[in-house]
């Protein structure tokens, strides 16, 4: 676990511009590796949006955990949080864009006091899939948040939970001491409510590598997670999503500090798989920042790379302006196109 956010410790890499400088220099400025744009150009490919299906909303950077790999640089010391007015704009956007999926993320999205209001509004607007990206430990943190699994169930919320490993040692090293035990307790309670067991109550887990390596086969890891979690803790879940760590924010800081940055970037670039391009989530997702600003994905949001065009806030974007918009790319995009590909729903291929 990190001791504090990069922002709190006044680390140079807390500034997205510095992160982009790192990602533009060295291997990429010397020509040793092609930039992501150059790679696309070599294939005569250009990334553009299709139809909007997923509205991914970041409710704030506040979190009860300070994970080593966090691309948001979230933590208890982050105070950025989506206001009630901006939540109103999100609800208005759901009415206008009619996305199939509302994907709520953070930080810990549950920590936003407007969380339940937004979920209820999405239910009343018949959003098919309402996802909460829960870190699990928040659901064990106090009596208020212990009531949330029941709220999730009553509203048919799809729970997507982070669990980097079925072993305590690996999970706690990445996410903090005691996180594994609390996560298991939360998963047990979700199971008791029917999550991961009742076909209408989906419980998916998210695996991301605990270090400078790419995730292995999603299918094989899912089988191992299911076998071990069932045998050791009687836990059931639906799918395991494998997500590649992207070289931004705290994970970038870790890569540089551990002298793994160059090798990791070489690995990502060598593993570039053009077949992933058609399935990238930036093609059907709109990422909304806590202040209502718009991005192609959550990673671009953290790097403050806005969407193309002059309509950069949720309230400004017209319904017909989503499709066929050029997607802003940078070297971190190699993370989503490596090997089997990576998205917030796991592997692409």
């Amino acid at each position, binding site marked *: 676990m990190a001791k504090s956010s990069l922002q709190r410790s006044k680390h140079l890499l807390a500034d997205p511009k510095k992160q982009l400088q790192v990602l533009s220099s060295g291997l990429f400025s010397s020509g040793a590796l092609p930039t992501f744009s150059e790679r696309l150009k070599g294939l005569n490919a250009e990334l553009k949006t299709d139809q909007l299906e997923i509205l991914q909303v970041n409710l704030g950077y506040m979190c009860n955990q300070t994970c080593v790999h966090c691309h948001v640089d979230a933590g208890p010391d982050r105070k950025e949080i989506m206001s009630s007015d901006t939540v109103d704009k999100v609800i208005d956007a759901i009415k206008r864009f009619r996305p199939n999926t509302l994907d709520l993320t953070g930080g810990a999205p549950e920590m936003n006091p407007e969380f339940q209001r937004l979920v209820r509004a999405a239910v009343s607007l018949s959003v098919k899939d309402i996802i909460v990206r829960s870190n699990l430990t928040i659901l064990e943190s106090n009596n208020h948040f212990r009531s949330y699994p029941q709220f999730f169930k009553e509203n048919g919320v799809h729970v997507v939970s982070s669990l980097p*490993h*079925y*072993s305590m*040692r*690996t999970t706690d090293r990445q996410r903090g001491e005691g996180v594994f035990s609390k996560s298991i307790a939360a998963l047990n309670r979700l199971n008791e409510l029917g999550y991961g067991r009742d076909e209408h109550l989906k419980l998916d887990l998210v*695996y991301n*590598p*605990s*270090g400078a*390596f*790419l*995730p*292995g*086969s999603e299918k*094989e*890891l899912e089988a*191992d*997670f299911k076998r071990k979690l069932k045998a050791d803790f009687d836990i059931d879940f639906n799918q395991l999503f494998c997500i590649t760590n992207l070289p931004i924010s705290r994970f970038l800081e870790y890569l540089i500090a551990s002298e793994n940055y160059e090798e990791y970037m070489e690995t990502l670039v060598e593993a570039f798989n053009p077949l992933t391009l058609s399935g990238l989530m930036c093609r059907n997702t709109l990422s909304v920042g806590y202040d209502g600003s718009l991005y192609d994905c959550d990673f671009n949001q953290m790097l403050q790379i806005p969407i193309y065009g002059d309509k950069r806030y949720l309230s400004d974007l017209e319904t017909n302006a989503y499709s066929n918009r050029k997607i802003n790319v940078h070297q971190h995009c190699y993370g989503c196109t490596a090997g089997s590909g990576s998205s917030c729903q796991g592997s692409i291929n």
Partner: protein
Amino acid sequence: MSDTYYDPKDLKNFKKITDWSEPLGTRFFEYYSKVFEEGALSAREKSLIALAVSHVVKCPYCIDAYTKDSLQRGITEEEMMEAVHAGAAIESGATLVHAVQMMNKHKKLSH
């Protein structure tokens, strides 16, 4: 040229051995990838065997490669270390079993 006998970067150039003998190199790599496919043993089990053997044959390239492979497969630290101990036990056993030869020879030569 590297100043040391082993250079981690050489692992990436492993496939270049085919430059000097294309048929043998190609057949080796085909065989190698076939060996590590799922079979009667899982790819995960084979990876752990490879990790143990990497230590026994003391191949730094192989240790790097199969440590990384173990991490990607979600293999735990305990499993990795137990695999290395299994290899080490066989290796030390292979040394110690020769002590019987020593004892036999000693018996024959001494009174």
